[in-house]
């Protein structure tokens, strides 16, 4: 364990770190608000480039709001909007506007997407400019910009403000702290009582053994919630994090996170004889979770196998759900899948942990 732990950490951190600034097969939505021919030809051009590089998985969205929904539901990572009067502007010798929609809940990803898409669209613009200059030889100075750079690219977040790393990381840290409170607090509380001897006093009394662990769970939940709220307040006050969604939904999600981890905490408590082993087992479980669940680095930038592992960690869903609600202002239906998965994790782990705990208490 002494040697394995640091090695393990290095490998984990090394693998989850974004491996480059390029994107591949990233789901991007495309909304064409323009009804002229130029918009269509832009799309044809984009498709041609994409077919060659395979950097995007394009889907269609109706408008910005539609795109926002898709982002909240994690269907896409970003979007491209062709503005309403794209064709008419271009035909009138003005610039046509393209908007890149980015997801502030994922700043690393949005910076990458923004960079890659801007570059692509700019180069598409240059191609068009050369093409047009070939046709129209005689150009005025006012038309020069529109010929060399016919497209202006701007970006728009789905909420106001610039992407902010803290905005991205705060929801994850809250979920993580709540998890840590339970996973460290529960085994500690029980093994402490075992150590000082008071556990025997409770076990020798005519009370249900589950009520012992239930009491501990309640205490640790409150502790975790308080810590979570302190982080929330610090995030808002010191780092200017804005909570877009319903605060009650945030509280509910934090409680749900607790529920999904209770079983795991009880399980560790039942398996381990003393505090030292408990701490070791817990650390081994917690660190990969912290790094693999997208708390600090976006899941999308991890290698596929690491992403695969992440899907088996409840913290992944807790983090995603909290982030969607806090940063993107998602509502319950938008985080429905995550809620169901967290409830599922909670129930399954409890079903395993409760009989284990009962058995461990009468060893």
């Amino acid at each position: 364990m002494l040697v394995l732990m640091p090695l393990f950490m290095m490998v984990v951190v090394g693998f989850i770190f974004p491996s480059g600034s390029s994107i591949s097969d990233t789901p991007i939505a495309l909304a064409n608000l323009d009804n002229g021919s130029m918009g269509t030809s832009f799309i044809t051009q984009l498709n041609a480039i994409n077919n060659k590089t395979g950097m995007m998985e394009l889907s269609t969205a109706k408008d910005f709001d539609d795109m926002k929904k898709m982002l909240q539901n994690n269907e896409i990572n970003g979007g491209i909007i062709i503005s309403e009067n794209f064709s008419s502007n271009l035909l009138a010798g003005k610039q046509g506007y393209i908007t890149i929609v980015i997801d502030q809940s994922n700043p690393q990803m949005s910076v990458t997407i923004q960079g890659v898409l801007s570059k692509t669209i700019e180069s598409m613009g240059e191609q068009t400019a050369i093409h047009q200059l070939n046709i129209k030889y005689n150009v005025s100075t006012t038309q020069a910009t529109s010929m060399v750079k016919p497209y202006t690219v701007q970006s728009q977040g789905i909420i106001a403000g610039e992407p902010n790393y803290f905005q991205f990381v705060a929801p994850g840290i809250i979920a993580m702290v709540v998890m840590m409170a339970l996973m460290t607090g529960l085994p500690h509380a029980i093994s402490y009582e075992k150590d000082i001897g008071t556990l025997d006093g409770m076990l020798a009394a005519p009370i249900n053994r589950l009520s012992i662990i239930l009491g501990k769970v309640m205490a640790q939940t409150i502790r975790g919630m308080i810590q979570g709220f302190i982080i929330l307040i610090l995030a808002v006050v010191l780092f200017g994090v804005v909570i877009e969604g319903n605060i009650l939904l945030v509280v509910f999600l934090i409680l749900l996170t607790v529920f999904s981890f209770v079983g795991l905490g009880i399980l560790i408590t039942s398996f381990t004889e003393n505090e030292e082993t408990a701490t070791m087992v817990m650390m081994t479980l917690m660190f990969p979770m912290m790094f693999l669940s997208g708390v600090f680095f976006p899941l999308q930038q991890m290698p596929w196998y690491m992403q695969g592992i992440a899907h088996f960690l409840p913290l992944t869903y807790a983090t995603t759900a909290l982030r969607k609600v806090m940063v993107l202002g998602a509502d319950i239906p938008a985080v429905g899948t995550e809620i169901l998965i967290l409830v599922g994790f909670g129930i399954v782990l409890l079903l395993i942990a409760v009989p284990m705990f009962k058995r461990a208490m009468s060893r």
Partner: protein
Amino acid sequence: MTENSIQAMKITNNFKCPRCGHIRTYTGLPGEHRIVTCSSCGVQGKVTIPGVAVPISTNGSAIVISHLKKVFGDFAAVDDISFSVKKGEIFGLLGPNGAGKSTIIRMLCTLSRPTKGSATVASYDIVKQDGKVRQHIGLVSEKMIMYDQLTARENLKLFGKLYNIPNHLLNTRIDELLGFVRMEKWADHRIDTFSTGMKQRINVIRALVNEPNILFLDEPTLGLDPQSTAEIRELIRRINAENGTTIILTTHIMVEADILCKRIGIIDHGKIVALDTPANLKKLVSGTDATAFEIEISNLEPRMMSSLQSQSPVKSLVQVDPTHLIVRANGSDAFDNIIDNLRNSGAKVRMVKNLEPTLEDVFLHLTGREAREKVSENGGSQKRGFGPHGQRRKTARVR
């Protein structure tokens, strides 16, 4: 109580398999929860045997242990032990550390499940009716069952609450108990400000908060200074005398078992090697009712010895060296007779020592070795014993 009477309590019931409809019978104690496997298709079903948990008749025994065994890995901590404890007695489990005393206590307190065998405590089965057992027992284990950060009263209240005692009853009970150990004025002080002796007094009354019929004391004087040890021993006696509480006490201190217990079970390597009253156990060593005396006479002459030998209570007489005699004699006035006789024959008696066997001798006699010692109490045994073969040996290291 025997296995047969437990059998008689059992109720036979039918289990209908939810899958194949096959019916099999099963037996169990009323109120017991069991998992029954269908004998035809192997489906398991959870059943509760009808009826409420009723006490099992134990003919006046507080505890009946029948072939109890506890195995950890391939080590049998408790190896097929059977005995019973009468209501209202102080029963001692005596043995060196690691002999299995604590494991027995833990099983009887429902903290540990026996690997094999059964036992009833306060007329309830320790496995099948564990909830009922817990209502009737109090436990003082090796580690104090108290929270240091709470006051004495808070601790008593907390543990009292576990027994669902109504507040007003609990409060009077706590005041009574605090008075019982003269700790009233310390009631609202934190436990961590107390001396070990005070802590243990609170710890003992904490075990009495539910008015248990049976009190388990696992090494109650371990780590206490001599004065506190005496206090706790006195407390144990009073609990037994004033409330009629049955007390099971484990100890590795022979003197403690000797002065407190009505009967003693000597345990070694998970087995009971002897079980009797302290007096009867000592007879195991001497083999007779005779008492041995060591007498030092400064002017010892053969004349004095033959005069002594002619006395009827004197059974044997051995001269150890020019001034020392070992005399074994019977009867309550043996000592008087010997002294009178020696005075009459002009002997100058410099010292007389009673060589009555101690429980240490019993332990040595039964196990062939000394009990291992654990530092806990000042001063050693004042008595010096003779081994089973009458040879002098150095003072046993166990008190």
